[in-house]
């Protein structure tokens, strides 16, 4: 075997948790290598195309589990490349949740207030901005008007989108070819590279072991750039510090597979998985009623027929994000576009006489696709997901060349979770079926189980070693020098889109990682500005880090 490469910090995964830590560590002076299992795509690689093999399958990982399927990014930039860029902060009560453990799930050190400066760092870096009503596409406007008609409030959500460049093509799930979506490819990652970080696409981390010098050795395989089932190489890399950020569907699997060589894992590795309480309802809008009841009409006189137009989710109602409501009954309801190629199969026929998700009546439902409106529930689930034994490689046995695989996640929604979903279904129906505006049905859970694009909590932070795999500094209990900074570190469902919170936690985790690297002899110091050089948010956190991490 050839000599094993060695670096200061190896980062696994290049989504929010990976890109943010890689940038700060590289900018602070550490040698950083990022392993990313997916391809490295940019601008023109982002096809507006549903053909197999285009970016709409290359950049994705869809893992069907037992009772829960997870859709996630699979490319340099991770979920930020394929996501919808809705970036709200989590409401205050979320941090006080008890969930299934009968005590506060979040570490005592973290609340909305203490996370705020780290949220500010992300907002400055991407950046995240507020939207005006004039930025809101028809579907969001329709949802807002229906909410208003039903006595609810509704907000344009803050986004990481440059609305000047956005053409409202709704292809953002295949990556944005107009560079309007401010993915990590446009900020943290190029800045990390400018500071010497090396990014290795198509490198899939498999397992860790301890190296002789007190650091870690990470074993990886190299996958073919078209057929991800095919292994074309492999190797190992030594590092003093390891940052795992493969996403909540993948990070715990790497750790499970490493238990043989690293020694026992904390009990919470691969447990407490949350799907962010996600649930979808699809409404078929009665176009005439949109005009008659809501008074809406496009310039061509058509009331709506605009499901295809826009930029993902733009408007949400936050009336149930009320800390005084009982846990499990708080949720946001956000308008969403989910494109064809998985975006229709789970929608159900209202008043079906036969099967609800396929058949002759389903085809009739599809005939009205232009008049669909999809509403996304993000509620409080019970962290009931558990990962079974890991597959031989990666986080799934791959079925297709790209995208589709089968994994070991098992999820059986508890009564609490089901109650939240039922309440939100009823509320969506109340809003949209009022005065005959629409017919509404939830997506079925009987085909691929429940479904999430927001995997969380499978390797979470906390104060209680029995129910959290990481301490409040994101270090893996019992395995010093291994940090987890992706969605798996989030303790539980957030009731809003999670990427802003994942990113803020990653920002917050950096000083402790810097500190650990310094203790292992790495010449690194905390304090880089935003990727574009902005300093306001950086300056606001420096006092919080004083005396640590080289400050």
């Amino acid at each position, binding site marked *: 075997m050839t000599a094993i490469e060695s670096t200061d910090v190896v980062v696994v995964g290049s989504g929010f948790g990976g890109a943010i830590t890689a940038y700060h560590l590289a900018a602070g002076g550490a040698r950083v290598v990022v392993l990313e299992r997916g391809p490295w795509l940019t601008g023109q690689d982002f096809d*507006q195309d*549903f*053909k*197999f093999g*285009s970016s709409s399958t290359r950049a994705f990982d869809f893992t*069907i589990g037992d009772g829960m399927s997870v859709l996630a990014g699979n490319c340099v930039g991770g979920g930020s490349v394929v996501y919808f860029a809705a970036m*709200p*902060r*989590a*409401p205050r009560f979320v941090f006080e949740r008890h969930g299934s453990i009968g005590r506060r799930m979040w570490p005592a050190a973290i609340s909305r207030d203490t996370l705020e400066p780290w949220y500010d760092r992300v*907002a400055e870096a991407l950046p995240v*901005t507020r939207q005006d*009503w004039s*930025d*809101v*596409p*028809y579907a969001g*406007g329709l949802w*807002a*008007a229906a909410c*208003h008609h039903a006595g609810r*409030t*509704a*907000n*344009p*959500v*803050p986004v990481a989108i440059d609305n000047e460049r956005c*053409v*409202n093509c*709704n292809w953002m799930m295949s990556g944005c*070819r107009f560079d309007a979506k401010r993915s990590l490819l446009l900020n943290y990652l190029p800045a990390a590279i400018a500071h010497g970080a090396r990014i290795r696409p198509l490198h899939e981390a498999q397992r860790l072991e301890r190296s002789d010098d007190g650091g870690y050795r990470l074993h990886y395989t190299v996958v073919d750039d078209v057929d991800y089932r095919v292994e074309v190489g492999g190797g190992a890399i030594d590092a003093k510090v390891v940052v795992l950020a493969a996403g909540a569907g993948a990070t715990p699997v790497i750790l499970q597979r490493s238990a043989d060589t690293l020694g026992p894992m904390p009990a919470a590795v691969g447990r407490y998985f949350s799907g962010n309480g996600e649930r979808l309802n699809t409404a078929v809008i009665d176009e005439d009623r949109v005009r008659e009841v809501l008074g*809406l009409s496009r*310039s*061509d006189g058509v009331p709506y*027929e605009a499901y*295809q137009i*826009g930029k993902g989710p733009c408007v949400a109602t936050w*009336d149930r*994000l009320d800390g005084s409501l009982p846990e499990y009954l708080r949720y946001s309801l956000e308008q969403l576009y989910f494109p*064809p*190629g*998985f*975006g*229709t*199969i789970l929608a159900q026929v209202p008043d079906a006489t036969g099967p609800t998700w*396929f*058949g*002759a009546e389903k*085809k009739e439902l*599809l*005939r009205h*696709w232009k008049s669909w409106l999809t509403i996304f529930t993000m509620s409080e689930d019970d962290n009931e997901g558990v990962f079974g034994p890991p597959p031989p490689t990666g986080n799934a046995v791959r*079925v*297709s*060349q*790209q995208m*589709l695989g089968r994994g070991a996640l098992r999820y059986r929604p508890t009564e609490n979770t089901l109650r939240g979903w039922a309440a939100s279904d009823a509320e969506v129906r109340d809003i949209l079926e009022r005065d005959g505006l629409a017919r509404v049905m939830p997506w079925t859970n009987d*085909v*691929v189980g429940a479904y999430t694009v927001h995997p969380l909590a499978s390797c979470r932070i906390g104060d209680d070693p029995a129910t959290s795999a990481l301490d409040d500094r994101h270090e893996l209990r019992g395995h010093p020098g291994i940090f987890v900074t992706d969605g798996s570190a989030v303790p539980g469902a957030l009731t*809003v889109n999670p990427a802003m919170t994942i990113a803020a936690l990653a920002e917050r985790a950096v000083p402790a990682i810097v500190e650990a690297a310094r203790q292992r002899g790495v010449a690194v110091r905390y304090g880089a500005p935003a990727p574009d050089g902005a300093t306001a948010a950086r300056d606001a956190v420096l006092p919080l880090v004083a005396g640590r991490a080289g400050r």
Partner: protein
Amino acid sequence: MHDSAQDDVTTMTFEAFADTILPGEKRFPGDVTVAGVAVGGGAVASGAVAVLRTDEGGMAPALDNLAEALNGHAGGYAAERGLSLDPAVPPFVALSFADRTELVARLTAPTHPERDIWVSVAMFSTIAFDAAAHLHTVDALADGHPGMTTMGFKPPEADGLWRFPEFSYGRQLARPHPDTTPSGSPA
């Protein structure tokens, strides 16, 4: 070795399955795999078998065996119901649309041991209809792809790219939540 008789059985069987997922009108007189219970092209005319046969999808190597398994289930179903099936076509094809539907519902039910497989076939059938995953989307729409045309999927601009310059009602349509923070987030 290439076996065209087996190819025919496999194709016919999956056409009948795909037509059960999203049905279409008969393509020609004497079309036996498409039951003809719906107006306009369905999953079959949209290319379901082509999608199942793509290298990318990963199903192709298993299809002959799956067709045999599906026909085995159809035979068992017919026996249970006391149906006599036309021996000239594969057993699943010989079932009526209602019986095909009932059998597919059973095979994809949460408790069926083979559900993963049949859900996958249903998924590929649906993707043929709603996304034409075996074709470039631009070409599919230009050629009047039945599924995407039925859905009213809008075509791109002349340069082959989608843009929607008109996209917004352009006015405030609801009262924002009173506790919205300056960053635009919930409090």
